């Protein structure tokens, strides 16, 4: 198998293709974090008093957490101390003028998103996908806004929502992930700069995919975006986020918060294709992806579904979960997490069953290659009130090569005896026999490995919106193709 290993190493070491930097003038705040910085960020965004108060409250809480060294240490990941005083907490491309239409966006910016495959100009947009493009700390463009507005759907940057829909933001901000939730969520609550906001009114089925594309460009900058999606009674929305960053030797922090709220009979489908810069083949550089994502299935028979394909980032720390509060509500989590070279991932989900007859479904596929370490950490909690709750968990690990690792930490807490729980787990290796079989049929080693891995992930990929399933497969083949050995 030595020949395979060679081919695969070449592929695994293939360069990250989104690693370029855009030369654009930025408006940044000084490094470090204190109340003045918070006030400065808030002032730059021209925020109302209540928003600033919330930030300050969060900052003070975070400062106390920092003092008591409450940065979470329990995850199965290893990294040096983060110097929070050396991070730039806000960086925005300098606007040339007030934008009246998408056509007035800085051409550099357009070119950047074009290069990333996210065209923002009218003619070239993905048909059927509305995009909000976030560059460093701010949203630079949102497409199809008017068309969505006709249906009463609000899809805009978070900053715009704070200005134009303060009643909605005030009602739901922090209602799923409170500012005290955890160290990184608290930090985000203090300094978050932008993100997407989406509101789907009662009975409306959003006719297109909503999508946010996150791009970190500036050096030494942290990206702290915040997304809030509210689906009113009987509505439906499918949302997708993608992310990339330039290649840099320094680690960069990305600490996002996503909150979803689904009311009676509403459905939210949230998909992520995460392709942050993963660091080089020796593990230098890369994004720390420390993210808190949670949905509240608040209404009866509501449904929240998370699908994630995590192939990038030096370290991934995220547990998109669902609080199943409404009776008969459903929570789903479908995940593919890939770690190659020296990447680390500690990811999984939390399903908190509160309502009666609530159901959750978890399918996690972890792939480890190179020296990658991949941990599934999942919590399923059935509270006393959750009569007739059901959970199904399937958790599979695939190992490629000899130097990687797969770990599984399932936590199950059942307080109601009527609950039905199923847990299945497997660990397998990409077999020499499988690779040889496919090569004998005429496929190259890299195509063979990629076919086997894509087959392994099929159950998750079929949950992605059509257009993105293909992209996810390609992405996986590029980031993975490492290491049959």
């Amino acid at each position, binding site marked *: 198998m030595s020949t395979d290993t060679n081919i695969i190493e070449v592929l695994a070491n293939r360069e990250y293709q989104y690693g370029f930097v855009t030369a654009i003038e930025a408006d940044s705040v000084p490094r470090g974090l204190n109340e003045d910085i918070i006030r400065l960020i808030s002032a730059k965004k021209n925020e109302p008093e209540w928003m600033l108060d919330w930030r300050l409250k969060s900052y003070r809480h975070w400062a106390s957490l920092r003092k008591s060294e409450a940065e979470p240490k329990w995850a199965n990941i290893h990294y040096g101390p983060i110097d929070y005083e050396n991070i730039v907490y806000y960086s925005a491309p300098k606007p040339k003028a007030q934008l009246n239409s998408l056509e007035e966006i800085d051409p550099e910016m357009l070119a950047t998103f074009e290069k990333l495959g996210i065209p923002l100009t009218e003619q070239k947009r993905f048909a059927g996908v509305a995009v909000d493009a976030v560059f460093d700390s701010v949203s630079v463009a949102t497409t199809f806004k008017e068309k969505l507005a006709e249906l009463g759907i609000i899809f805009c940057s978070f900053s715009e929502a704070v200005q134009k829909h303060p009643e909605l933001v005030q009602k739901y901000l922090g209602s799923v992930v409170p500012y005290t939730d955890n160290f990184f969520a608290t930090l985000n609550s203090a300094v978050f700069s932008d993100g997407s906001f989406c509101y789907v009114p009662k009975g409306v089925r959003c006719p297109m995919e909503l999508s946010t594309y996150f791009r970190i460009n500036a050096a030494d900058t942290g990206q702290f975006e915040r997304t809030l999606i509210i689906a009113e009674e009987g509505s439906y929305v499918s949302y997708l986020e993608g992310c990339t960053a330039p290649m840099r030797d320094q680690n960069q922090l990305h600490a996002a918060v996503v909150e979803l709220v689904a009311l009676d009979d509403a459905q939210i489908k949230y998909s992520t294709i995460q392709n942050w810069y993963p660091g080089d083949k020796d593990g230098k550089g890369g994004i720390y992806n420390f993210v808190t994502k949670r949905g509240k299935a608040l209404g009866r028979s509501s449904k929240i579904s998370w699908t994630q394909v995590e192939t990038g980032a030096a370290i991934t720390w995220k547990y998109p979960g669902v609080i199943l509060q409404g009776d008969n509500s459903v929570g789903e989590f479908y995940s593919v997490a890939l770690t190659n070279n020296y990447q680390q991932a500690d990811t999984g989900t939390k399903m908190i069953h509160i309502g009666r007859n609530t159901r959750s479904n978890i399918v996690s596929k972890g792939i480890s290659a190179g020296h990658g370490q991949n941990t599934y950490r999942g919590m399923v909690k059935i509270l006393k009130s959750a009569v007739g709750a059901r959970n199904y968990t399937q958790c599979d690990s695939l190992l490629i090569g000899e130097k990687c690792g797969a770990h599984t930490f399932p936590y199950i807490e059942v307080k109601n005896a009527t609950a039905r729980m199923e847990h299945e787990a497997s660990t397998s290796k990409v077999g*020499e026999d499988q690779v040889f079989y496919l090569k*004998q*049929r*005429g496929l190259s080693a890299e195509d063979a490995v990629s076919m086997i891995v*894509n087959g*392994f992930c099929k*159950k998750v990929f079929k949950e992605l919106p059509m257009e993105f399933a293909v992209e996810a497969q390609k992405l996986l083949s590029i980031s993975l193709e490492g290491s049959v050995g």
Partner: protein
Amino acid sequence: MLEIRNLHVQVGNQEILKGIDLQVNAGEVHAIMGPNGSGKSTLALVLAGRETYEVIAGEVIYDGNNLLEMAPEERACRGVFLAFQYPVEIPGVGNAYLLKAALNAIRKYRGLEELDAMEFLPLAREKMKLLEMDDQLLNRSVNEGFSGGEKKRNEIFQMAVLEPRLAILDETDSGLDIDALKIVAKGVNELRNPQRASIVVTHYQRLLNYIVPDYVHVLVDGRIVKSGGKELALALEDQGYAWVEAETQSATTAHT
């Protein structure tokens, strides 16, 4: 088409093939028979390019080129096909998906245009019919949950679609009932033509009632000890391998 000269192969430190000579011309069907552990499957896998086997001496010339220098996929693209003794399962990969990818990889190598799904499916369906296979097997994951017989038939189905120049069947008959055996034989006979050749590795004579070979070779302890026409297979059926082994033994003794 294929010329094997003095081929020695080992696994670890154990020599399994101890000097094989074999010539296969286009249009011929060769049967390789022999007792368990004689090296039949090793020969099949070495020809297909399995890396776990180390060639320590000899050469294999295929269409004028050194076969042993080619990667397994290159051999496949040049028309070498192995029907595996133990076809592996590949979860989540559709049978049709794999086969279309394989066919297109081979076509691309040969400078032919790749087929799209609309062109591929009728072709696949036609071959399935020939092998009396259920259409549903096209959409199921490769060999996953297939019965032993289905796996073997699936190998022949793939062969029928890929239309190799040199087909090597490694004990495709083992574990098949007589009806399945006939279907498998039909698949192989369908491919028979003056441009193609087959090597049929088998333990039993039974299969050769349906795939009538031009030559039969008996492999014992890593060497071809006897070659002949199809009647040799019948003699083996009557008298067992002990007879050939005894004959070889006495021949060796006579030399010393």
